[in-house]
């Protein structure tokens, strides 16, 4: 049900392959898929309507690029359109020229304002500012207490002159406007340079509370009014955003709970409806889980296409250059990948952060999402223990591992022999794949790498890292999937299409399929077919050929 857009488009494009030009019907079919993908990502209906209309227009219009095939054209258009709406550059907080900078938070109940206040405070503090949190949420029970706790966790002082309500049954007594005003005065007196005002959560339809927010806004005259919105929000995003835009005229948006698996179409809706930039994303429960928002990367997320850019960035930051080169050399020389290499690489990966996050960023991993989610980080430790229980000789030549050696390793690492066996088996497979890749004149499926730089990077990564799909090293994803697709293809070959052009195409497809040897799910046949196809395709599109 939750297919990624790329999967869907791949299916749609199957029929387009070989066509030089897009007919209106082709575009219609594709646009329908895009529409569904956007709707499944919770992009608001009016925004989707507008979006698909302009994609269609551009696809049919003058933008026909001779160098790209139809499918690429569409992906390129969709991606650039998405980025256009989300805004190109990351916007930073506007600081006041004199006196404290005031940042006000507004949003629906449960969007995560109070938590965010702490995170923002922590973030600003780590940037060298002296923030003060002001508890102007006197509405929600214990909101003031919560802010105090959050402030403590973040190590940021909290201005809370009024205890607020402690239960649903107290009538809110204090004046949040006065609290906010005093807070700013306090900050001025005590030389805090940033004031973060937490306000009561409200429903978009609640006029009284909206007026109160407006009053707070007028009283403290904030440099930034941040609208906090839950990444999981559905179609209501538009109404909510509009209500708040009219109510408090926010200057920026913060997307919260982005660490969930919601695709966050709300980001697109809000940006499109209000034209306000998304500035921050909140990505976890701890005070440190907070980051600047990268609009270009959000496009990939909405389309469920992985986030190679962040991956590359992290790799660059953390990867040991010498190690990487040594590895690449080994690769080129077609040397065996040993357990020693494995250990070294694993250390490198660990530096890059949680495996889950990293794997999730890989394009084409959508199909394995469940496995990724189920992945237990501690199993890395267990595997490491097994490898470390081997002698250096065994690590270099795993073949010598006989039964008694395995039993010893199992004992040494606290694992069972069958676990050791499993690891050996998978490692042998990985080794084989590595070799295959190395033999394939460099790395099959990565033809774009040598020449034209990094295509797709300019496009923000959504167009994908070239060759990812062709990489046979992902048996879990591409291998098995390919098998399924082959089977499907054969079935289709059986029923002839009534359309002569289509029939010819099908015949061609069928005959090419017959050539491909059946068997191994590990990419070999797939690889060959792909290489053929790749010759006809410009860079950046290989991922659709999975």
């Amino acid at each position: 049900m939750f297919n990624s857009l790329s999967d869907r488009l791949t299916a749609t494009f199957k029929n387009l392959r070989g066509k030089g030009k897009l007919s209106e019907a082709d575009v219609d079919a594709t646009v329908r898929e895009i529409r569904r993908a956007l709707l499944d990502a919770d992009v608001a209906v009016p925004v989707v309507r507008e979006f698909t209309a302009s994609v269609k227009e551009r696809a049919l219009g003058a933008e026909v690029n001779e160098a790209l095939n139809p499918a690429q054209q569409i992906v390129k258009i969709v991606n650039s359109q998405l980025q256009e709406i989300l805004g190109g550059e990351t916007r930073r907080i506007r600081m006041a020229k004199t006196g404290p900078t005031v940042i006000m938070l507004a949003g629906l109940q449960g969007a995560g304002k109070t938590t965010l206040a702490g995170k923002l405070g922590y973030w600003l503090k780590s940037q060298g500012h002296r923030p003060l949190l002001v508890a102007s949420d006197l509405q929600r029970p214990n909101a003031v207490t919560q802010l105090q706790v959050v402030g403590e966790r973040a190590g940021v002082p909290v201005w809370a002159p009024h205890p607020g309500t402690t239960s649903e049954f107290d009538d809110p007594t204090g004046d949040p406007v006065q609290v906010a005003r005093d807070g700013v005065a306090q900050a001025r007196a005590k030389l805090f340079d940033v004031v973060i005002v937490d306000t009561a959560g409200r429903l978009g339809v609640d006029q009284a509370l909206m007026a109160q927010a407006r009053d707070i806004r007028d009283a403290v005259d904030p440099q930034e009014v941040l609208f906090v919105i839950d990444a999981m929000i559905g179609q209501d995003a538009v109404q909510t955003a509009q209500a708040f835009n009219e109510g408090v005229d926010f200057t920026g948006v913060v997307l919260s709970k982005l660490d969930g698996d919601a695709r966050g179409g709300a980001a697109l809706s809000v940006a499109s409806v209000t034209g306000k930039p998304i500035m921050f994303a909140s990505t976890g429960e701890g005070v440190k889980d907070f980051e600047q928002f990268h609009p270009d990367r959000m496009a990939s997320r909405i389309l469920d296409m992985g986030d190679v850019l962040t991956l590359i960035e992290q790799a660059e930051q953390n990867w040991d250059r010498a190690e990487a080169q040594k590895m690449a050399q080994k690769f080129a020389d077609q040397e065996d990948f040993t357990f020693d290499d494995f250990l070294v690489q694993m250390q490198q990966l660990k530096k890059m952060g949680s495996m889950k996050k990293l794997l999730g960023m890989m394009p084409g991993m959508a199909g394995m999402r469940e496995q990724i989610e189920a992945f237990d980080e501690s199993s890395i430790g267990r595997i490491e223990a097994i490898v470390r229980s081997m002698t250096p000789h065994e690590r270099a030549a795993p073949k010598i591992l006989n039964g008694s050696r395995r039993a010893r390793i199992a004992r040494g690492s606290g694992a069972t022999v069958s676990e050791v066996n499993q690891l050996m088996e998978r490692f042998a497979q990985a080794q084989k794949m590595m070799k295959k890749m190395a033999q394939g004149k460099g790395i099959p499926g990565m033809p774009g790498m040598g020449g034209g730089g990094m295509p797709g990077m300019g496009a923000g990564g959504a167009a994908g890292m070239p060759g990812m799909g062709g990489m046979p090293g992902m048996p879990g994803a591409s291998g098995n999937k390919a098998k399924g697709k082959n089977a499907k293809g054969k079935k289709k070959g059986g029923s002839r299409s009534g359309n002569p052009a289509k029939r010819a195409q099908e015949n061609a497809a069928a005959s090419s399929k017959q050539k491909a040897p059946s068997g191994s799910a590990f990419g070999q046949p797939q690889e060959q077919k792909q290489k053929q196809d790749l010759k006809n395709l410009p860079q950046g599109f290989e991922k659709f050929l999975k």
Partner: protein
Amino acid sequence: MYVYVIVAVVILALLGFVLLRGPKAPPGGYESTRDADDPIPGGSGDGEPGAGSGTGSGTDAGTAVDEGPRIERPESVNTRMARLRGRLAKSSSVFGRGLLALLSRDRIDQDVWDEIEETLLLADLGSEASMDLVEALQQRVKVEGTSDPARVKAMLREELLKLVDPAMDRSLAVDRKEIAPAVVLVVGVNGVGKTTTVGKLARVLVAEDKDVVLGAADTFRAAAADQLQTWGNRVGVVTVRSENEGADPASVAFDAVQAGIEGESDVVLLDTAGRLQNKAGLMDQLGKIKRVVSKAAEVDEVLLVIDATTGQNGMVQAKVFSEAVDVTGIVLTKLDGTAKGGIVVAIQRALGVPVKLIGLGEGPDDLAPFDAEQFVDALLD
């Protein structure tokens, strides 16, 4: 630089391959839940369930019975229903106002179908359910050969109603079992209103003359236990909580159920911390809570709280939570805003989990049983 990237990605892929299929439990599963040398829980009380409270009365540590000066008598069920009906009716009596204008044309063309589909999409029903529904409707129109928009409108309502299924059992299992109280576990993602729902539900049950115990198993969010205790104090209900933040929620839950058993209560309501469904560790924790509680008394009802503004992610939430703790009902909160909460239709369609309660506002007595017809009317409004 390219070499870099290639190597990085290739290695990652390889590692992913090796790790994702990494050593798991032996194929047959472990025979027992613990290793041979693990201490045996239970009797001695030093296992996980009794943690913190030792043996005997699990209530002493954290029980706070603050029989405040005045204990409120929550609104009775009958008057509450009448009031909330009135509130819902206000908005839904003009059923399908948007559609009405559209369907008042004399002909049904593609635009009409598109509009219908959009109405459903706008209610967060999801693309699949919406498209299927429209398709079914088109089929029916073809079969019946009607071109009367009013009839189509009626059919749409019928189809939707069929999806929501008014005949479904939506009662809460809150009756005391022979020896133990009914146990209700309330779960959900962050910020949907779990604690408030527990508080409101406690009031409903007290109004039905039930003896209720609250368990504050949300030991993570700042001040969550305080919030729950305030709810409890208002209606004179005991709240079992842990004094220290970050205590094991399973242990608190267990203590609460123990207190319920000892106090011969009718219902124990357990509030849990909000957790995003893709955090495997936290979902495991939830599974543990349920397992541990089951050692004292079976969990009769697992309520998943979903915010009406939630979009398609609600489906994933329902799925994952069901896998972890077998959700038996849904509470749809914050229906007093502009959101329609149509995702629950898709959830019920896919998983068969019915909505049992709806939250309609910020007032303490604004929790109502789910009414299929009203809900459908509101969806189409």
